[in-house]
C-alpha cells in the first residue's frame, strides 16, 4: 500500500498544532451553523404575502395547540398568536364559568383591563350562552384609565351547545368587519375543538371495543369447559385441578385484560397457549395445535388481544362447526423490519370476501385497531376457499413511534 510509503519523506507537523486546527475548524463550523440559524433565509415582499403567511402560521399553531383540548394553558398559547389577527386591542377566551386566558395586543394599553376582568364575567357568560355573536359594553360605571370599552363575544359551539367563547376588545364601536373577524376566528377554534373531540372519540371507541372484546368469552365455552373438568374429577383429579387453575388464570386475564393497549408477542402467546390448553381439554384428540414461532420476534410489541381472538375464531370454524379432527397452526416469523403472524385452520373455509371494516365481531375489531395504529396497509388479511381452510395474517412493524408495551 502506498500510503505507508508516501509518508516517510514528509516534514512532520507537530500533532498539537493539528488538534488546535481541529478546534478552530469545530468553532468555525459551529459559528456557520449558528449564523445560518439566526438569519431568516426567506424574504416576503408584499404586505399581502406577509399577512397571508401570518394568518397561515396562526392557523397552524392553533391546530397544534388545540388538538390537546381547551384549558388555561392552550388558551394562552392560542391567544398569543391570535391577538394580532383579531384586530382588537386585546383578546380572551372564556369557558362557561370563567376566563381561561386574557392577552392584550402588543403596543396597546389593553393590559390595564386585566385588573377588572371579573367585572364583565356575567355579561360575557350571558352572551356566550345565547349562542350568537354579541357586543358587550364593558364597565359602564367607571372606566377609569382603561382604554377598552366594548367586547365582541363569539361563542364556540360543539353540537349546538356553546362551550366557550372568543372575546375581542375594542376602544370604540366595532366595525362590521371586526365583528366578522371575531366570529370567523371563533368558528376556526370551534373546528379545531371538534377535531380534537373526534380524535378523543376515535380513541375511546377503540378502547371500548377492546374492553368489549375482553369480556367476549362465550358462555358455551365456559359451560363446555366446566363439564369437561367435571368429567375429570373422578378419573383424573390431578388433571382437573390443573385445568381449574389454568381456567382461573385465563379468566383473570380475560376479564381484567392486559393493563394497556399494547403487549409483547411473548405475553400474547402465553395467553393463547393457555386458551388452547383449555380447548384441548375439551376436544381431546380432535384438536391438534402447531406452533411455529421464531424467537427473534417474541419481543415485538403488538396490540393486546391480537392473536387470541384469531385463534378462538379458528377453533370455532375449524373444529367446532364440523366433524372429525382439525389442526390449528399459529405462526410468527421474522421478516426484516416486520413480524408476520398467521393463524391457520384446516376447516371448511368459505368463499367470497368479508368486509372487515364493517364486521362487528372480533375480527373487525382487530382489523380496525390494527389500521388505526399502524396505518391502512396493516389490517387483517383473510385467505380462504371452500374446503381449503382459512388463514388470517397480520403484519406488525417491529417499531412504530408511540407504540410501546407498558
Amino acid at each position, binding site marked *: *500500500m502506498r*500510503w505507508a*510509503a508516501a*509518508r516517510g519523506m*514528509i516534514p512532520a*507537523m507537530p500533532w498539537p498544532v493539528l488538534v488546535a486546527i481541529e478546534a478552530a475548524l*469545530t468553532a468555525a463550523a459551529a459559528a456557520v451553523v449558528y449564523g445560518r440559524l439566526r438569519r431568516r433565509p426567506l424574504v416576503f415582499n408584499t404586505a399581502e404575502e406577509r399577512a397571508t403567511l401570518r394568518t397561515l402560521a396562526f392557523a397552524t399553531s392553533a391546530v397544534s395547540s388545540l388538538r390537546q383540548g381547551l384549558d388555561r394553558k392552550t388558551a394562552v398559547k392560542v391567544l398569543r398568536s391570535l391577538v394580532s389577527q383579531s384586530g382588537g386591542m386585546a383578546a380572551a377566551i372564556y369557558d362557561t364559568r370563567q376566563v381561561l386566558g386574557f392577552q392584550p395586543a402588543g403596543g396597546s394599553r389593553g393590559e390595564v383591563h386585566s385588573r377588572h376582568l371579573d367585572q364583565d364575567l356575567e355579561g360575557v357568560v350571558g352572551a356566550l350562552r345565547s349562542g350568537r355573536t354579541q357586543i358587550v359594553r364593558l364597565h359602564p360605571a367607571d372606566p377609569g384609565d382603561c382604554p377598552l370599552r366594548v367586547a365582541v363575544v363569539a361563542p364556540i359551539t360543539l353540537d349546538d351547545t356553546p362551550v366557550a367563547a372568543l372575546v375581542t376588545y375594542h376602544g370604540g364601536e366595532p366595525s362590521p368587519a371586526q365583528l366578522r373577524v371575531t366570529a370567523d376566528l371563533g368558528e376556526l377554534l370551534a373546528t379545531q375543538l371538534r377535531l380534537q373531540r373526534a380524535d378523543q372519540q376515535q380513541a375511546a371507541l377503540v378502547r371500548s371495543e377492546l374492553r368489549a372484546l375482553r369480556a367476549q368469552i362465550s358462555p358455551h365455552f365456559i359451560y363446555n369447559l366446566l363439564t369437561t373438568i367435571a368429567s375429570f374429577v373422578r378419573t383424573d383429579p390431578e388433571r382437573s385441578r390443573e385445568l381449574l387453575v389454568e381456567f382461573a388464570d385465563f379468566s383473570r386475564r380475560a376479564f381484567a385484560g392486559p393493563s394497556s393497549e399494547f403487549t409483547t408477542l411473548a405475553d400474547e402467546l402465553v395467553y393463547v397457549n393457555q386458551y388452547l390448553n383449555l380447548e384441548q381439554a375439551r376436544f381431546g384428540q380432535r384438536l391438534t395445535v*402447531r406452533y411455529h414461532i421464531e424467537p427473534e420476534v417474541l419481543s415485538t410489541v403488538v396490540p393486546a388481544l391480537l392473536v387470541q381472538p384469531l385463534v378462538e375464531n379458528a377453533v370455532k370454524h375449524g373444529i367446532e362447526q364440523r366433524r372429525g379432527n382439525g389442526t390449528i397452526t399459529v405462526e410468527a416469523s421474522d421478516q426484516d423490519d416486520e413480524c408476520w403472524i398467521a393463524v391457520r385452520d384446516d376447516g371448511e373455509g368459505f368463499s367470497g370476501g368479508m368486509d372487515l371494516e364493517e364486521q362487528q365481531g372480533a375480527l373487525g375489531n382487530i382489523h380496525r385497531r390494527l389500521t388505526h395504529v399502524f396505518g391502512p396497509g396493516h389490517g387483517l388479511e383473510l385467505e380462504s376457499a371452500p374446503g381449503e381452510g382459512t388463514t388470517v395474517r397480520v403484519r406488525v412493524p417491529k417499531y412504530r413511534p408511540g407504540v410501546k408495551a407498558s
Partner: protein
Amino acid sequence: MSPSLAAVLGLVFMAALSLGAGLFARRFSRTTSDFMVAARAVSPRINAAAISGEYLSAASFLGVAGLVMQFGYDVLWYPVGYAAGYLLLLLFVAGPLRRFGAYTIPDFAEGRFDSPRFRHLAVVLVLVIGFFYALPQMKAAGLTVQTASGLPYWVGVVAVAVVVVTAVTGGGMRGITLVQSIQFAAKIFAISLPAFLLLLRFGGPATPFAPAPGDLVRLPSATTYQVSAGELWQVPRRTTMEVRGSVLVTWSPGDPVRSPGSVTAEVGSSPSPTSTAPVPGQRALLLRGRVSVPGGTLVWRQTAEVTLARGQPAPYGSATPASTNGSWSRPFGPLAGGSGHPLLFTYSLILAIVLGTIGLPHILVRFYTNPDARAARRTALLVLVLLGAFYLWPPVFGALGRALDPSLYGNNRTDAVVLVLPSLLGGWVGQLLLAVVSAGAFAAFTSTLSGLLVSLAGALGLDVYGRWLRPGAGAQRRRVAFQISAVGSGALAAGLGLLVGQFDISVLVGWAFAIAASSFFPLLVLGIWWPRLTTLGAALGVALGGGLATVAIITTMLATVSSPLERFLAQASGLAVILEQPAILTVPLAFGVMILTSLARPGPPPGVAAKLVQLHAPELLGLRSDYIPE
C-alpha cells in the same frame, strides 16, 4: 497457494451447515405438549454468540492476522478496539435502546426526535456505512476462494456474492439466531485449533515471538518466488538469489529499513519505465543465474522464477514497509510511525474503532431479540467475553506468519496468512486444518455479508422504497423491493469489491468504523443521555460528522489512483493522516455541532421527557395488577 480439495470441501461443508441449520430452524414446529413460550425466548448466551458470530467478519478472521504480520505491535489496537466497543455499548446504549424498542438506528432517529425527515438522513448513512463494510468482506471472499481453490480473485468475489444474495433473497441464511451462533462456534474453533497445533509443532511461543531486535526477517527455508512483470521488491540488505534464465530488472539504491517505519519514496509508486522520473542511481540490470543484489528497490521487468536460499533476508513487496524485528514489535512501528504523526494516527484509529462499533447498522438490530434491557446488557457483556476469547488468536497467527512464512511479504499476500500457515503442518493434518480454517473464513465473510446485505436491502427496499417513495406499498411489493435491493446491493458490493483488492481488509473495515463513529455514535449517546439535544442539532451533527469522514476517506482512496492528489498529500503529511484516520477530527466535530446547535437554538422535540422515561426507567417499575379491578 496450491489448490486444495480439502479446503474446497471445508467451504462446501460450512455452506451446507449454515443453510441446513437455517432450514432446520425454520421448518421445526412443535405441538403443544412441550411448548412454553417463555422458554423459547432467546437467552443472552445464545444471542451473544449470535452477535459475535455476525460481528466477527473477515476483517477479524483474516485481516487482523495479516495486518499484525505486516505492521506488528500497532495493529493490536484493532482487535482491542473491536472488542472494547462493546464496553461502551454495554454502558451507554444497550439497555436504554432495548427499552425504547427501536429496531434499527433510523427507528431510533425517528422515534426520539419525532422526525421522519431525520429518519431519511439516518437511512442514507446506514447505506454508506454498510457499503464500506461490505467491501472488505468481498475482498476476503475473493482471497479465500483464491487461496483454497486457486481460482482467480474475481471468481471468488462473484461466487460468494451470488451465494449470499441467493441465500438472503430466498430467506435461507439470514438473521437466524441459531445459525449465527453456530457460526461463532465454527470461527473460534477454526482459528484457535490451528494456532494451538502450530505453536505445538514449531516450538513454544518463545521461538517466533522473541527474535533478535535489530535483525531482519530471514527465510526459514529455501523459497521460490514466481514474480510477474512490474512487480516491486524491497530488498532490505544484500541478498543472494538464484534466477532462472535471465531477467531484466530496474534497481534503485536506498535502505528500506533506514528508520522505524520510514521507507524509500519509490516504494509503492506504480513503476512503469515511461512515467517514473529518473531516480539518482537507478540502474537497469540483467540478472542471470546466481546473483547478489545490494539493498534497495527492485522492479522486475519480466516474469521470473527466483529462488532464495534459507537464511536470506526476506524481500518485501509493495504493500508492506520493510521493518526490523525491533520496530515491528514496538509501538509506533511501521504502521503508525510511517504516518509521520504516530500519536495522532494511533489515537484517531483507537477512537474510530472503539466508538464505531455502536454505529454499525447490522449489530444493533440483533439486540432487538432480547426480551428486556437486562437481557440486552447481559448479552453485551457476554459478547465482550466471547470476542475477547476470539481476538487472542489472530495476533498469534500474525506473529507465527512472520517467523514461519515470510515469503508472504514478497508476494503481497499477508492477508492470507491464516489460510496459508496450516498447510505447513504437512500431511493430512495440514490438509484437514486447511479445510477447517477455510470453513472458518467462509463463515466469517458469509455471516457478516448476509447480515449487511439484509441491512442494506432493508434500508433500500423497506425504508427508501417502502416508506419514502411508496409509503402505502403492500406486503408483496415490499417483498419484491427488498429482493431487488438485495440483488442490487450485492452486485454493487461485488463490483466495488473487485476494485479494492489493493487495500488491506482491516484498513477498509476501519473506514466503515470511522464513519459510524463520527455519525451514529454521537447521535446515540447524546440522544439517549442528553434531554436538550434538538432535532436540528442532531441532524446537523450526524450529517457533518458522517459526511466529512466519508469525504476524507474517499479522498484517501482516490489518492491511490490520482497522482496529483497523491503528490499533494505527500507534501502535507498532517492532512494525509487526518484524511486517512478522520475520527479524531470528525467525532469531536459531530459532538460539538450537536451540542452548540442545541444550545444556540433550544427547543427539544415535543414529549422528550416521556421518551427519556421510556429509555431509562427500569422495567420493574411497570406495576402489574394481579387482581381484577372493579
